[in-house]
């Protein structure tokens, strides 16, 4: 009896060491007409990658290459695909276990900042008072301390995105999906948000998958970048990013940064699947 328990525990430990937080194996998705997939039109073809806890990964690629589709599959919103997605947190539906922040802030116009942020806790069954109390302790970190009682219509674009990010963060999942979260912001605000996001995530232990058009953004924020191509949507190449101290303002004009940028732009333009193609 004791023996079996012990070996079972050991098995768990071994599993944890081997497992990534997220594993995608040959994930493909077909165009659908109604509910019937059309087998010769692929939206995503054979996407395979792993993500470990705490890693920040970016996916860049042209519009229509299936980046958002991929996030919809990972989040659990869309379950119609072939291949395998495994997430170490749960073997069931991933809905509620992965935070997903979209380009649109999707704030509820009838809730003020505090109540919008607390929504994610409320939906997990945390009482309303407790949700509000916990959300309000985090407002300062997100630069929203003075805006707890403001309604979304009164906020700037950058502030709205921060509320949406606070809402996603409060769900307290080990994986955060960001679908062009800063795409609608002006360049200056976006750059401010980058610096702030780096600080926020630094010691959180959260893994992030960021989808973006913006090469600078991808290099600045990520440990690893996947370049996607369209027709069919696939991962064409991947690169590790080593650029040194990210919070340094000079980083975006450093030699390592510009060299990487040139590589990415070339990879995005090239027609063949070069690089470390998967």
């Amino acid at each position, binding site marked *: 009896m004791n023996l079996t328990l012990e070996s079972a525990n050991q098995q768990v430990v071994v599993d944890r060491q081997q497992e990534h937080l997220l594993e995608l194996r040959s994930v493909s998705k077909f165009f659908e007409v109604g509910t019937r997939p059309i087998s010769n039109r692929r939206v995503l073809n054979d996407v395979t990658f792993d993500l470990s806890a705490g890693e920040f990964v970016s996916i860049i690629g042209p519009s229509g290459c299936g980046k958002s589709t991929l996030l919809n599959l990972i*989040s*659990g*919103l869309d379950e119609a695909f072939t291949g395998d997605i495994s997430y170490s947190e749960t073997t069931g539906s991933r*809905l*509620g*276990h*992965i*935070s*997903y922040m*979209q380009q*649109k802030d*999707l704030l*509820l*116009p*009838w809730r003020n900042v505090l109540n919008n942020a607390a*929504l*994610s806790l*409320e*939906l*997990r069954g945390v009482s309303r008072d407790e949700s509000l109390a916990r959300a309000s302790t985090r407002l300062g970190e997100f630069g929203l301390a003075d805006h707890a009682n403001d*309604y*979304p*219509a*009164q906020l700037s674009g950058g502030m709205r995105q921060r509320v949406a990010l606070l*809402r996603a963060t409060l*769900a307290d999942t080990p994986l955060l999906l960001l679908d062009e979260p800063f795409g609608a912001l002006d360049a200056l605000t976006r750059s401010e948000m980058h610096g702030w996001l780096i600080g926020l995530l630094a010691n959180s232990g959260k893994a992030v998958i960021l989808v973006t058009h913006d090469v600078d953004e991808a290099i600045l924020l990520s440990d690893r970048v996947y370049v996607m191509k369209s027709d069919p949507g696939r991962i064409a190449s991947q690169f590790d990013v080593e650029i040194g101290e990210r919070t340094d303002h000079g980083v975006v004009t450093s030699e390592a940064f510009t060299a990487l940028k040139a590589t990415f732009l070339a990879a995005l333009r090239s027609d063949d699947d070069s690089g470390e193609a998967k």
Partner: protein
Amino acid sequence: MASARSVSLPSIMNIAREWLPPLAIGALGIIAWEVWVRAFDVQRWLLPPPSSIINEIVDSRGLLTEHAFITLQEIVIGFALAAGFGALLASAIAYSKILERSLYPFVIASQMIPIITIAPLLLVWVGPAMTSKIIVVGLISFFPIVVNLVDGMKSVDQDMVDMFRTLGASKRQIFLKLQIPTAIPFLMSGLKIGVVVAVIGAVIGEWVGATGGLGWLMRLSAPQFLTARVFAAIVVLTVMGVILFAIVGLIERMVLKRYPRMN
């Protein structure tokens, strides 16, 4: 001091700008009516001048108040029932596809039945007391409430629904925390239309057969050539309708304060 003036002065101007034109048009119309009746010596039983309508309102204020109160009761109870049942039915329709398919056609079909043909039947079924009038009011005002509420609940943005789902929301949570709040402005529009037709419903019900109420009073006064009394009842009914509409409008404005984007 300066700031107080700069706030209050324009607001008085705004109120004046808003209310003066309709008041002026109304006053002009009443004066023209009075002059017309006097100049051409129109028979009082055919068309009484405004002055004798006002006299009638003052003279019969007891009678008018008594019957106005009956009509008001019918409107308020019937409207409240319509709002309650309407909200329940709309929720059921918005919550379940099967319920939508099985119930919605009947909701729409119910509006094709002319209420004027139902009213006498109701009289036979439940008697001439207030109940039949309450039912007519309920039937007539329930439709705009249901249709608006269903539209509102279904107008939810799919991206919002997806956001709720990624946060692990159940269908019930999506309904309570997303669909219902989204539908509130639509509900308010439905209530505004509903309260107006409720007034019409009460008069139709009373006209067909009743033991009291402003509609019954008009029906009784017309054949006796008490035309001034008919007009007096119309004035009281109109004022009552406008006040009810204003109350719903006020509630709407209070509720929609929390919907800055939709205002």
